[in-house]
């Protein structure tokens, strides 16, 4: 069965939510993954978005483009306001957070602020939005991103959202006591972090991807354990749900 890289990414991200009760998700692939998970591996999942919506449902074909619009307030259980929804995460209520960025480095740090120098940027990117808050406050964080060499850099130009910073216990030392970047899900594979060094390593390959592909698309030295498993391919059911949600392929 054929599928787009974005579809593969959404399916693999959804599987990260198996049995999870609450996820802090942004729009696009992360939201599609969350909705898919709710219909498959996480029936009790409550979706939370930073615009201030708790437990919304989405109308197929009318996917939200921002996290603060009516399309993602549809049939919500609560609309608590932006600051208060992040405070739920700060208090420890939210299980998993999905984040992404223009750059991700070997320690899981993300950059969505600037390419080049902050004060004299080569490229001014949109900014953190809630990414910094999600990665700082949720119990478990999953980075969801396409796997491209220009994104996977040794060190991000600017740490908008702290992963493990310089690795080791740097994150804890900075005062980030809770939560951690547990996984990086890409369209090529699944990555996690060495317990000691907190450097990224390959945890699984997605169907159709070879170790060489992953290495080629990664701009830093990636630890590749022997005998890395290969993920189950997306099922017809999974793809059907996704395609039903986004028939115009706005995000897929």
């Amino acid at each position, binding site marked *: 069965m054929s599928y787009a890289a974005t579809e593969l990414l959404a399916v693999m991200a959804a599987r990260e939510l198996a049995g999870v009760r609450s996820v802090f998700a942004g*729009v696009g692939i992360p939201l599609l993954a969350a909705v898919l998970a709710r219909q498959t591996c996480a029936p009790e999942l409550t979706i939370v978005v930073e*615009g201030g919506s708790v437990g919304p449902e989405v109308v197929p074909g009318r996917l939200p*483009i921002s996290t603060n619009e009516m399309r993602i307030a549809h049939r919500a259980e609560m*609309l608590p306001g*932006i*600051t208060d929804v992040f405070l739920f995460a700060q208090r420890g209520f939210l299980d998993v957070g999905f984040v992404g960025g223009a750059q991700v480095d070997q320690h899981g740090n993300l950059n969505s602020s600037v390419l080049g120098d902050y004060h004299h940027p080569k490229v001014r990117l949109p900014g*953190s939005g809630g990414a910094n808050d999600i990665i700082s406050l949720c119990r478990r964080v999953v980075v969801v991103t396409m796997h491209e060499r220009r994104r996977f850099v040794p060190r991000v130009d600017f740490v908008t959202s702290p992963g493990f910073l310089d690795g080791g216990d740097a994150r804890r030392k900075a005062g980030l006591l809770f939560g951690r970047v547990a996984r990086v899900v890409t369209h090529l594979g699944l990555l996690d972090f060495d317990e000691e060094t907190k450097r990224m390593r390959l945890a699984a390959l997605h169907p159709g991807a070879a170790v060489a592909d992953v290495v080629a698309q990664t701009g830093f030295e990636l630890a590749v354990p022997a005998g890395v498993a290969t993920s189950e391919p997306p099922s017809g059911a999974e793809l059907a749900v996704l395609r039903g949600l986004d028939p115009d392929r706005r995000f897929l």
Partner: protein
Amino acid sequence: MKAGDFVEARRRLEAKPRASREKLTTLGDAAAQVKDGDVLAIGGCLYSRTPLALLAEILRQGRRGLTLSRNLMCYEGEWFIAANAAERVVTSWFGIGLPWGLSRIVREAVESGRVRYEEWSHLALGLRYRAAAMGLPFLPTLTMLGSDLMAVGEARTMTCPYTGETLCLVPALYPDVALLHVHRADRYGNCQIDGYPHMDADLARAATTVLVTAEAIVPEEEIRRHPDRTVIPAFAVDAVVEVPGGAFPHECYGLYEADFGHFDAYVEAIKARGVEGVRDYLDRFVYRPRSHPEYLALFGEGALERQARLARELVPTR
């Protein structure tokens, strides 16, 4: 005002000539309370409940040297950049949304150094407004710690006297003027909002001056019938203007959905002509219309009604 200066902020509030209890006025008189160089706080979020009618009037009055602050800044920020009305933007995110890509206007203005972009995390900025709403110099938080955002703004770290842990402190942001668009208000300024509250209630408490446009001015009786729906009290408000469709083509929860097609056209013009595309847009949609109804008419027959239908499909109306 220095970030976190709660003393000066309260003094300004106390020194302010008290608005009369009756606060109904016009867009022109309301916007006239904004002065060159003011720090503005814009209500709503991104393209939800943006006080576009008020913002347009501020541009018409030719203000200069403004600082714009907002949780997520949408293209209204580009208007002020293109009109050379803003020199500083305080936000956590600036753009329209994924489908429209990076903002060429923001890139040119910030990369050239013409406009300063002060970035905070979304929660940190929300807490800066909340600290001000509470009359405080700062609030502690666990966010932003360890990130490079700590180094480029006025956040500080402190050692918690109760636990010894490291905390991030974010300084209160006390805007000179808050600009808000709400669902209903009475003529005294009691405001009620349906659906997403966003950060409006905090902005109304944080700012020295609060200007409100409302979809409808309702009798005091209607407010008193549901006092638990009131989110902004009359004593915090300085001016109220009735402006149906005051956030259009952005959304107003339950009343009209954002007009994404309009955003497409707006961005197309920028792709074609850069900042000139925005200036042409301002001529057509901001400077020429002599009234808000005239502005709404530019969207074509029944545009507002069409978006209202779409809104009703998504969320319940009261």
